[in-house]
């Protein structure tokens, strides 16, 4: 029921924004900024996250008149994010994997980065390391993690979205986490 209400509310805001209501667009921006920001941050180098996030919302502004309510607004927005990310990498003429390698860190690199293990409180460095490791994963591993953690989709929803069984989805998820763990601990000393 809450989801239905949220979807209806999104649709009302979109319709209003399509008719030129700036407040309605602003509400959509405030609602979706956190998830867009997190998704962009999981795939783009830190220094460009803000710019790409902004480009996403500008693309939303320009394309909003083409939104036909055939899909959820959140789903449509996710497509736009992926498109902007692809444009970003096309513009830099670099592939995702080539750009972000755990060995080629950008200006977030810290000299004595260590991963805390089992101490319950990750340090700032740990979090940076984790984000960089996430960016360096193969696309399918990164995507399932982003779908679950950033977009908040349940495993059965991810399975449906990707056309896989629930078991296959959970298996992919475990392998993605294992790959992430390996990358993170590989940089530990």
């Amino acid at each position, binding site marked *: 029921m809450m989801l239905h209400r949220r979807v209806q509310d999104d649709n009302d805001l979109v319709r209003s924004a399509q008719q030129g209501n700036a407040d309605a667009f602003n509400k959509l921006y405030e609602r979706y900024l956190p998830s867009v920001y997190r998704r962009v941050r999981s795939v783009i180098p830190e220094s460009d996250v803000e710019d790409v996030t902004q480009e996403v*919302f500008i693309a939303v502004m320009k394309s909003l008149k083409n939104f036909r309510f055939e899909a959820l607004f959140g789903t449509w927005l996710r497509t736009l994010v992926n498109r902007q990310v692809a444009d970003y990498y096309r513009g830099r003429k670099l592939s995702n994997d080539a750009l972000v390698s755990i060995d080629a860190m950008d200006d977030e690199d810290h000299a004595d980065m260590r991963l805390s293990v089992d101490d319950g409180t990750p340090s700032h460095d740990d979090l940076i390391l984790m984000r960089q490791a996430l960016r360096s994963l193969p696309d399918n591993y990164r995507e399932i993690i982003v779908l679950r953690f950033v977009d908040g989709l349940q495993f059965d929803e991810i399975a449906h979205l990707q056309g896989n069984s629930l078991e296959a989805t959970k298996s992919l998820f475990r392998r993605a986490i294992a790959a992430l*763990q390996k990358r993170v601990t590989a940089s530990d000393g």
Partner: protein
Amino acid sequence: MDERKPMDNRQLDDQRLDNQLAEFTDRLLQGAKDVSLSTQDAELRALQNTVKMLKTAVVDDQPSQEVAGRIGASLQREWQKQHPVRKNDDALASFKQFLRRPGRVAPRTFALGFAAMFVLALVIFYLSPALSSPPTGTAGGSSGLIPLAAIVVVVVVGLIWFWRSRR
């Protein structure tokens, strides 16, 4: 038969790990307070720890107010570029624009502008003694013509509006 067993056990182990990790992730992301790492299985515990850190690194990650403000300000400027507010959007300006480029003025604006001008003309006419008093020697006055003229004008304006809205 014996060769199949290790493979079956491995698959079962993998499935168990898949389900336990998925369930742990679900409980963690739902905000459950009693989410603890496995004490039985080192491999599972390591994966769960990674999931916990991932939640902190990704889910709990929010754009700062400064970032949100900067992006919001840029979007406002972009919105104004894409949705310019017309200056002098009043009845007289619309009428002038209509004379220059008839197709560009919204029919409703034009109709309202014309009606406003007509009312203004009527007020001036009634207030002006020279115009409103009937000329001497005439049998009646021209007072009956004014309501008729008003009706004609309103009909004409309405027809123009209707015709333009159909185009």
